[in-house]
């Protein structure tokens, strides 16, 4: 399940006075369940393989601690957050920093579509877990395309 805000891209481009060539994709930091690992692996898949150069990530903890450089980066790039659980740490922290969330992915909703599947553990993924990673990475990539290649 994807929480899409198509208007955000337009808003962002207008506010930033021009197009952007990079999107920040920020995963959840969760280590209690498999969901956090899936969110991070999906992000790495996008930043390292599917959209290198157009998608980058930052440490969520740097936002939590108020790192000036990271906050500026988040405020000046469209963001995609990838949260593992309903606490939505990634999304909330980006919004609290003043960043625009162009897309909010909720891993737990995506996994609900695969009822009965075993995705792995907080430290390793099963084949079904890696399939979920690919599915989420594809969804993120579509939005990155819309934002940077329009």
């Amino acid at each position, binding site marked *: 399940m994807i929480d899409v805000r198509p208007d955000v891209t337009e808003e962002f481009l207008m506010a930033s006075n021009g197009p952007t060539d990079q999107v920040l994709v920020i995963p959840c*930091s969760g280590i209690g369940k498999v969901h956090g690992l899936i969110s991070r692996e999906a992000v*790495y898949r996008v930043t390292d393989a599917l959209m290198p150069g157009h998608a980058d990530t930052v440490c969520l*903890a740097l936002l*939590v*601690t108020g790192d000036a450089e990271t906050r500026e980066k988040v405020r000046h790039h469209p963001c995609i957050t990838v949260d593992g659980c309903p*606490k939505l740490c990634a999304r*909330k922290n980006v919004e609290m920093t003043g960043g625009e969330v162009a897309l909010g992915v909720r891993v737990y909703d995506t996994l609900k579509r695969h009822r009965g599947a075993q995705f792995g553990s907080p*430290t390793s993924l099963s084949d079904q877990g890696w399939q979920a990673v690919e599915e989420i990475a594809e969804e993120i990539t579509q939005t990155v395309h819309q934002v940077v290649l329009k």
Partner: protein
Amino acid sequence: MSETTKVGIIACSGEEIAAGTISRLATRRVLELLRPQTTVTLCLPLFLAGEEQERRFARQHPTITVDGCEKLCAKRGTEQYSGQVAASLVVSDILGDRVATCHRSARDFDRSDEEAVWLLAERIAVEVDTLSAAHSTTDADADRTASACGCACGGQPAQGNLRLDGKTVTVNGLPLIFDQLFRMGVVPDDNQADRLLNAVRVYHAIEAHEDDWYRNAVAQAYTSYYRGRTQPDVPADALLGN
């Protein structure tokens, strides 16, 4: 240790760097395998996104932070939103140049990542023991002999048995300790007996007067394990008393 004084471990969230991944995996290893009875954790960003319950964490538990880099987000975030940390570890300080060969994605993991996770997990476990001793209120033997995994995974920690002067002693993580030694190329011979003993000692309390018993028992068990790995028709698990 009392149920109410479990040691908290807060890993670096460090999604951007390999050291963050190593920090999280080592923390999970301590929670699931090395010290399952005495440790708990919390996701660092929950301090901001969560509620009062999350923010009480470091006030309720003596807390170790495990930061990936010198920015010390875990330590600073914990102290800013929760409470003073009891110990602060930094992955780059502990692993040094080894971090440069690690990867942030499990897709790329190799032997250098495995070794880094083990080394860091061992270091965290030592820190947990130090804090546990300081906060100890009950018989430590209860922790040593309990078998249920105390983390959220709902599983059982990997265990192996040693025959010790006619008694059977269960050691948490013995198969994984042996697996790591095997991967490091340790061959079972007399020269390695102390190395084997010291590897087990990290995860299992051994009194000074028990050294000789454990040294012999561990060497014997590792010899059997090694044989099982190098001769496929011998099941290694069976040779660990499982």
